[in-house]
């Protein structure tokens, strides 16, 4: 009986962990505006947590800079499975204008499997909510397979 309760609760309250991998902060600002009362994602169950070990969904912003790469990978490795990695903005997806820079270690998909891309520069908060909803769906499928 508790199993069903726990299953429902985890499905309906995915916790987010945000990683800034060298972002210009545009996407970071849009992410916090998604979680605050105006475009409230918290009413849908999303919560920002301070430790990757508590998270279900990892949101990564920023082109992955060489300096941040080992830290980003370390933080992501601490997120327990099943997890969903969401890249926000065009920077982690391709590097955008920073593509051929000496300090960019390349798109995030080179290092980890990325589940959802939310494109935009910066994506609109409503688009981010779409992306998070898709991530929740993927997470549900991953849990179903487990």
């Amino acid at each position: 009986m508790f199993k069903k309760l726990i299953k429902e609760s985890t499905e309906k309250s995915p916790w987010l962990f945000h990683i800034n991998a060298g972002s210009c902060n545009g996407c970071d600002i849009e992410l916090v505006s998604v979680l605050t009362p105006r475009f409230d994602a918290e009413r849908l169950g999303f919560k920002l947590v301070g430790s990757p070990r508590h998270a279900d969904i990892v949101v990564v912003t920023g082109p992955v800079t060489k300096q941040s790469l080992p830290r980003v990978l370390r933080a992501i490795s601490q997120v327990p499975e099943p997890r969903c990695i969401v890249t926000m903005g065009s920077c982690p997806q391709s590097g955008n204008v920073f593509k051929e820079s000496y300090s960019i270690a390349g798109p995030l998909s080179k290092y980890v499997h990325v589940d959802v891309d939310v494109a935009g520069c910066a994506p609109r908060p409503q688009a981010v909510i779409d992306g998070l909803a898709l991530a929740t769906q993927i997470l549900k499928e991953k849990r179903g397979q487990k």
Partner: protein
Amino acid sequence: MDLPFLKEAVSGLFSKTSCEMYPFVPSEAAPRYRGRIVFHPEKCINCSMCERVCAGGAIKSVAVPVEGGQQITRSFNLGSCTFCSHCADFCNHGAIELSADYHMVATKEEDLIVSGTFFKAAPKKPAPKPAAPAAPKTEAAPAASALIKPRDDGKPVQVPSKCVYCTLCAKKCPAGALTVDRAAKTWTLDEESCVACGTCATVCPKKAILMPGDEPVAVEAPKAEEPKAEAAPKAEEPKAETAAAAPVQPRDDGKPVQDPSKCIYCTLCAKKCPAGALTVDRQNKTWTLDEDSCVACGTCAGVCPKDAIVM
């Protein structure tokens, strides 16, 4: 007991929420929002200006040769796009527009690529005869009764009577298809390189280039070569001396003339001259024009606060 904001707390329980309940209530982007790119391949002329100006390097094209020409596929990677809209701004034919659609969420990279394919016919081989009077491409002296008309294939046509050989069109041509010789007064178009983008016609300060849609221009007797030859000996003297005469007449070759009675030597004209052809000395009150550099564009006359330059 002090309960600050008690009134607000209670009234907040019963007032309308300020949250935009997005998934349940649809949300439209603001007008002129720069969202998903929409490409109209039938309008594209393959000038590749969009690829050149793209900030994020998101535009790529692939050309596959087919019978009669090429099958060109232009793709826009939204995952690399900054949505700056430079591509849409620089596209002279309106083949790119940024819609108000902001829902760009994908699980695979392919979902973020917008592409369109169109067929580009190979240009016809140029006629073996030299330029016919109806469409002069170089500075061949046209027949007296001919009309200069825009070309059917969209490539630029020069109007020799208006052209001042300033070489701006050659400098701005993204394909490097124009060669303009100031000294020899020739304007040559490389048919193979020209992509008919219209940049030359847009930058020409004398509107001396015709593109499709422009009105045909009657051929005037070629601007008498003599005044230009006469101006040449004058070129050696500094302009300040010849402009000392009281009524200031504009020059025949279009270059600026200073009116010393109005000039205050503020040096604005020298600062704004794109060719760096003007030297103005405030202390000594001299205004000198470098004949060779001057392209007769008229910027100096435009910025002069005292209208002291006559074109």
